[in-house]
């Protein structure tokens, strides 16, 4: 499995900046597809170069099921598994940061059809995360200066799906006596579904989009110096996730077709036909920061450099800002209340007040305002919860627990 330098025999690692294998000892640069043992893994011509997935996906069903040898390490704290290739030894769990990582077994795993090699280097990925953290006004000071404790380049396994969705939707408006009806369809190509249970799907989904035109036929040479996850999701579960993603994307487009209204309700019965077309490895950098004993992991798309993650905020700064702004606003409103009530009592006659009371105008106004406030408050609290959820996902241990929940929830 490990690729060795044809010049000196030392282990080689894949270097994104050269798009080649580089000898760790003599610096020899070798095209991975020209190494003899790499060639052995190929079923197709080596002259083809980058593969156009669009053209080959339909032939996936004809491909025989192939396996390849993997060294699997298991974290005894969180249970996460990673494939380690070449001569590297895993010393730290990429999910929870624990050092309790032990060699588990050599396993034969399903061979992916394609791989998108890393094109973002380790230093660039670290710099991208640092820039984000240093420019964030509310980012905790500890995070601005701390060096990364652990950086790992990991290939994440994904299934790809193609398919079609068709639907007839009824868009109803609460304050209108008619319903608009729409026929819609959408075609999907290379819809990605992450198929590793150790990574939170909500987290890994943010890494997208990947440009799959850069995919090449899978070769173990590209794994040198990186980790690779085990595909452990049942394809039927992946199918359900693909259906859900396709349906949600489709509805997002459909809802924009009718006039916007906060009082719109959409109902439909979509027909979805999605089918798995392949298995691909996509690159991501996992960068763990641990300034105060709790690890937070940021992900960086290994192809585009997109940074994903939520940094803990400076609690003192957020609290003080909230209290100062809230106190100022409440004081202003109370002042307005004093002024307004004095003005009203000075200018409204008792007859008008009695008439207003009789017609329940004030009660109606207060009721509308109360309901609006309650709805607005609930909606805003949902946004707060959403942000807190994302912060929790960045905490590696919680991320792993989330991934376990996802297994039961799908």
């Amino acid at each position: 499995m490990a690729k060795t330098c044809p010049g000196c025999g030392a282990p080689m690692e894949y270097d994104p900046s050269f798009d080649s294998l580089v000898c760790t000892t003599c610096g020899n640069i070798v095209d991975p597809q020209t190494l003899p043992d790499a060639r052995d893994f190929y079923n197709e011509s080596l002259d083809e170069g980058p593969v156009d997935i669009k053209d080959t996906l339909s032939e996936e069903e004809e491909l025989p099921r192939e396996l390849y040898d993997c060294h699997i390490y298991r974290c005894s704290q969180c249970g996460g598994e990673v494939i380690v290739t070449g001569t590297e030894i895993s010393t730290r769990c990429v999910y929870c940061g624990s050092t309790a990582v032990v060699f588990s077994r050599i396993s034969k795993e399903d061979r992916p059809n394609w791989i998108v090699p890393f094109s973002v280097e380790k230093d660039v990925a670290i710099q991208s995360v640092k820039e984000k953290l240093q420019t964030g006004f509310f980012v905790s000071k500890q995070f601005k200066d701390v060096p990364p404790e652990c950086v790992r380049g990991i290939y994440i396994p994904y299934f790809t799906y193609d398919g079609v969705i068709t639907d007839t939707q009824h868009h109803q408006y609460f304050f209108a006596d008619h319903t608009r009806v729409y026929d819609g369809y959408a075609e999907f190509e290379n819809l990605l579904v992450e198929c590793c249970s150790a990574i939170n799907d909500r987290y890994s989904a943010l890494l997208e989009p990947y440009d799959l035109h850069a995919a090449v036929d899978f070769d173990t040479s590209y794994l040198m110096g990186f980790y690779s996850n085990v595909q452990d999701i049942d394809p039927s579960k992946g199918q359900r996730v693909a259906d859900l993603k396709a349906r949600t994307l489709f509805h997002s487009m459909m809802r924009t077709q009718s006039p916007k209204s906060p009082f719109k309700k959409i109902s439909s019965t979509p027909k979805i036909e999605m089918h798995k077309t392949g298995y691909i490895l996509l690159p991501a950098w996992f960068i763990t920061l641990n300034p105060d004993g709790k690890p937070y992991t940021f992900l960086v798309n290994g192809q585009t450099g997109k940074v994903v993650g939520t940094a803990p905020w400076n609690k003192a700064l957020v609290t003080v800002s909230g209290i100062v702004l809230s106190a100022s606003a409440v004081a202003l409103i109370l002042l307005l209340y004093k002024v307004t009530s004095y003005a009203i009592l000075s200018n409204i006659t008792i007859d008008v007040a009695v008439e207003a009371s009789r017609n329940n105008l004030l009660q109606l106004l207060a009721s509308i305002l109360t309901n609006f406030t309650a709805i607005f408050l609930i909606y805003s609290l949902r946004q707060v919860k959403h942000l807190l959820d994302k912060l929790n996902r960045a905490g590696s241990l919680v991320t792993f627990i989330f991934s376990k929940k996802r297994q039961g929830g799908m």
Partner: protein
Amino acid sequence: MRYLLVVMDPDAVIDLKIGLLVTTICLCVLAVTLIMRFIVKALTKSNDYGDDDLLGMRKGLDETKNIGSELGSDLGVGSSNAMKRFGCTEVTKKLN
């Protein structure tokens, strides 16, 4: 003219005072909520990276609750480029 400030008839002004008080409390809660949203938006911009909801999938959750889901929008948020073709036609008149 019998202005309320002069007369201060309890029966006449009680509804008015309660209404003003409720309105004021609601306005205070609204103001605090607005500030909370402002801070959440600032925090999202400052501390939350990579969550680009280009299609506005999360905004439409309420109106498509019967067919969409929060999980679906979270998972699909980065996959908009997988949709290669999309077509939509209004057929309201034809059906009617």
